[in-house]
């Protein structure tokens, strides 16, 4: 029985993720060299612009991860037979993506505050995007808290999926309401169809950093997913042992 369970289980590492892991480390190293040494200082922002090579990709990755959480949650709720592996697959994906998203949202906040200290002269401004980001952070911390609670796994997964959906719908509402409230932040740094304000080497560095951070995040999500899968496997084994022990005991006593 053990060999059957284990043959469809994901191992703790595969050749693909090994390569991805090495790639992630190399990409981060190159990103550090490019971002801190090779790319020039900005005319206006000076050295502080180097913070954006982390700050901007982090928030993009965080949003990407939360999109992944939401899409997985929809697919989870749509699946009719939720106890089967396909449904639980989406649940695991939602959970691991959300956790990685929270990590990168945290990084966005820290780098943003440091950047603000240099540029605005203060760690915190009640600016639309900072405020939205901190709310995003708290919202998904709540989501993770819900996922950690002791409860029936299916009940918990279903509630978490609903929460992920509501939270995601709420993101633009929060953003626009806070945006109306006040806007101090510089306009979006890089957007499709508009001439980027960051140009030349800085532009390429930012683009490359995004790629590097994406690789790191992908690697993290895959491994986090596996940990959840392994935890479930462990629970299943405990359960199987419990069932067989109940059967043995009852057969013996009667």
């Amino acid at each position, binding site marked *: 029985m053990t060999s059957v369970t284990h043959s469809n289980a*994901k191992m*703790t590492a595969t*050749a693909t993720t090994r390569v991805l892991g090495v790639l992630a480390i190399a990409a981060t190293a190159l990103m550090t060299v490019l971002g801190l040494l090779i790319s020039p200082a900005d005319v206006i922002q000076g050295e502080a612009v180097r913070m954006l090579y982390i700050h901007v990709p982090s928030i993009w990755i965080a949003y990407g991860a939360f999109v992944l959480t939401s899409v997985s949650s929809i697919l989870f709720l749509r699946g009719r037979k939720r106890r089967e592996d396909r449904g639980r697959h989406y649940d695991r994906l939602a959970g691991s993506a959300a956790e990685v998203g929270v990590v990168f949202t945290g990084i966005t906040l*820290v*780098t943003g505050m440091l950047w603000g200290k240099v540029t605005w002269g203060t760690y915190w401004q009640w600016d639309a995007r900072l405020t939205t980001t901190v709310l995003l952070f708290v919202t998904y911390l709540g989501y993770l808290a819900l996922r950690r609670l002791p409860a029936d796994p299916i009940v918990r997964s279903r509630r978490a999926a609903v929460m992920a959906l509501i939270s995601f719908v709420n993101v633009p509402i929060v953003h626009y309401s806070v945006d109306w409230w006040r806007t101090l932040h510089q306009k979006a740094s890089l957007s499709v169809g508009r001439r980027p304000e960051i140009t030349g080497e800085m532009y390429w560095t930012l683009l490359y950093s995004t790629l590097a951070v994406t690789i790191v995040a992908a690697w*993290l999500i895959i491994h986090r997913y596996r940990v959840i899968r392994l935890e479930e496997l462990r629970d299943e084994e405990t359960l199987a042992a419990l069932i067989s022990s109940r059967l043995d005991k009852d057969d013996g006593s009667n």
Partner: protein
Amino acid sequence: MSEVATVVTGWGITIFVIATYSIWVVSRGKAIGQELGIGEMEQLDPRKDAGATTDL
């Protein structure tokens, strides 16, 4: 703090956080894997190995 010091702090915190998180995830995976007797690497060729995989 000077601009350079701030930038270095920001990068430092980021790399520290990511590294710590990665190590936590990987070691947790390995710990549970060991508990369950799952090998670290996937069987690349299932025909070669019929038993449990525990390489490295």
